[in-house]
């Protein structure tokens, strides 16, 4: 026998009356904090403070403390000269692929598989994703995320999503792959499509943010501003043109909880293992492929052929062709490669934005296929239009400001 909804509740009321007694309950400090962080007057300032703290800890721990304070010294001072010294055949093609420039005095400019590749992966990206996921896991386990979702719902409603879309978005800031997987917590096809497309195009991953912190700290703000603006502009447009139902917001807000150390460490450890399995091979492979493509002249050829597009439409040097190819494998690697190309600061901003938006990295791409081939093709179609329009727009803004 099946009950109707009303019968079921009627039955539960009867059962509860006979079995449950609610005693006097005094509100605790935890409840008070729970309310303060969800009421707008206190909750919004707290949310801003939390995000700011997240960012400060991220950049000071990953960038200043770990990468600059330790890894740069280790790699530039010891590892790079050592590799340049012991690897045979300086000037030969194998040396070029593995070690890179024999005269380079820092690990970014060498561009070899085992020099720059290792440095980018271990020296810059590893500390960045470690601290990112540790802090994210803390916020998750405490139960802060649903509160953030409630606070930001109004804004995300305007782009066809709802507050809960903050979860895939923040996850994507670590790595787009789990971000794309998390679009499943959204209700309608329309929402999932908009979310997946926006993630793949506009959300830079932790690896990329970590490397930007390192190589373009002064202009990174502009890159992020362009990406966030794009997220909202194109979200707004997609919401207008994608058919389907608009979301209804309905979520459970759990009480705050003390995070369990074992759970935290398992989560972070899982991410780190994932990084070594997925990211590290791609960084090294990407480095190698780009070096080979340089050697056989393919990248110069692509640069020449697409020169009008690069120079006239996007306003970036031809030489960005190489990093754009590498970006298909790893965005962090591509940004590192861009940073050693000679160009104006505004060109650098445009080029890094292009690298971010032009194509999802191969791991994200694979995840998108898993979520649905039709959706993936749709997202790619949107992507090409966006890259062309937004890339041109950024160039135009540069021209108007007189900095392009």
């Amino acid at each position, binding site marked *: 026998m099946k009950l109707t909804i009303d019968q*079921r509740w009627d039955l539960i009321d009867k059962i509860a009356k006979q079995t449950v007694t609610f005693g006097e309950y005094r509100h605790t400090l935890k409840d008070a904090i729970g309310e303060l962080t969800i009421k707008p007057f206190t909750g919004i300032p707290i949310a801003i403070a939390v995000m700011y703290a997240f960012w400060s800890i991220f950049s000071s721990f990953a960038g200043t403390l770990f990468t600059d304070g330790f890894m740069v010294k280790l790699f530039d001072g010891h590892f790079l000269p050592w590799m340049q010294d012991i690897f045979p055949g300086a000037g030969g093609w194998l040396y070029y692929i593995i070690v890179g420039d024999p005269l380079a005095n820092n690990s970014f400019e060498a561009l070899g598989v085992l020099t720059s590749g290792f440095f980018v992966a271990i020296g810059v990206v590893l500390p960045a994703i470690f601290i990112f996921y540790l802090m994210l896991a803390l916020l998750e386990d405490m139960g802060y995320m649903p509160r953030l979702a409630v606070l930001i719902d109004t804004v995300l409603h305007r782009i066809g999503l709802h507050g809960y879309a903050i979860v895939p978005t923040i996850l994507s800031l670590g790595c787009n792959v789990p971000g794309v997987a998390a679009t499943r917590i959204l209700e309608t096809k329309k929402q999932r499509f908009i979310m997946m497309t926006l993630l793949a195009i506009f959300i830079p991953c932790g690896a990329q943010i970590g490397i930007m912190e390192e190589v373009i700290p002064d202009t990174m703000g502009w890159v992020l501003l362009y990406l966030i603006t794009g997220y909202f502009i194109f979200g707004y447009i997609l919401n207008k043109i994608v058919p389907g139902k608009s979301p209804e917001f309905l979520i459970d807000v759990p009480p705050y909880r003390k995070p369990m150390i074992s759970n935290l460490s398992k989560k972070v450890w899982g991410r780190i293992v994932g990084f070594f399995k997925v990211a590290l091979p791609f960084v090294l492979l990407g480095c190698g492929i780009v070096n080979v493509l340089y050697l056989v002249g393919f990248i110069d050829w692509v640069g020449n052929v697409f020169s009008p597009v690069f120079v006239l439409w996007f306003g970036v040097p031809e030489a960005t062709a190489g990093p754009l190819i590498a970006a298909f494998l790893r965005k962090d690697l591509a940004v590192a490669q861009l940073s050693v190309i000679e160009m104006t600061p505004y060109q650098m901003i445009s080029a890094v934005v292009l690298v971010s938006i032009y194509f999802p990295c191969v791991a994200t791409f694979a995840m998108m296929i898993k979520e649905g081939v039709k959706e993936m093709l749709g997202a790619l179609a949107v992507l090409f239009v966006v890259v062309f329009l937004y890339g041109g727009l950024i160039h135009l803004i540069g021209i108007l400001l007189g900095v392009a």
Partner: protein
Amino acid sequence: MNVLLMGHPNVGKSVFFNRLTGANVTESNYPGTTVDFTKGWMKIDGEDAELVDVPGTFSLDPKDKAEEVAVAMLHENKDAKVICVIDASKIERGVYLALEILEEGYPMVIALNMWDAAVDKNILIDINNLQRILGVPVVSTVAISGEGIKELTLKLKEAKPIKIEDIVKNAGGLT
């Protein structure tokens, strides 16, 4: 034998899963973390049983894709037993989900989890009476510390399909 671990999001299901199987699954304090399901093995009475950590769901009328997965998994495993994990402080809506699953004829044990938190809030639940009315084993648990987990495993073999009519009768009829 197949055992499905079901319940609302964020009631400690993944902690249960880790306790029962010794596996490594992480839990987040927000719904939808277990978007992919996880399988593991547990021992019941010396026999191996497959335990599935089903994504959290509030009802069997799914409202998002993660909940759809949960419902589909329940329907794919017609001969499975269900461990329904309920947050003891939110027992009413927990029983709602439990009833929906029982109505489909699945044998079940109920874990009233986070029992300690409910005690702190002065919520008293008469487990024996609840057991009598529902006709299924009910165990109070604190998954984080492991309290009640063993008893839960032992009770699993007592689980059998229940007639909803009997529950209605035991509760004193519908209005």
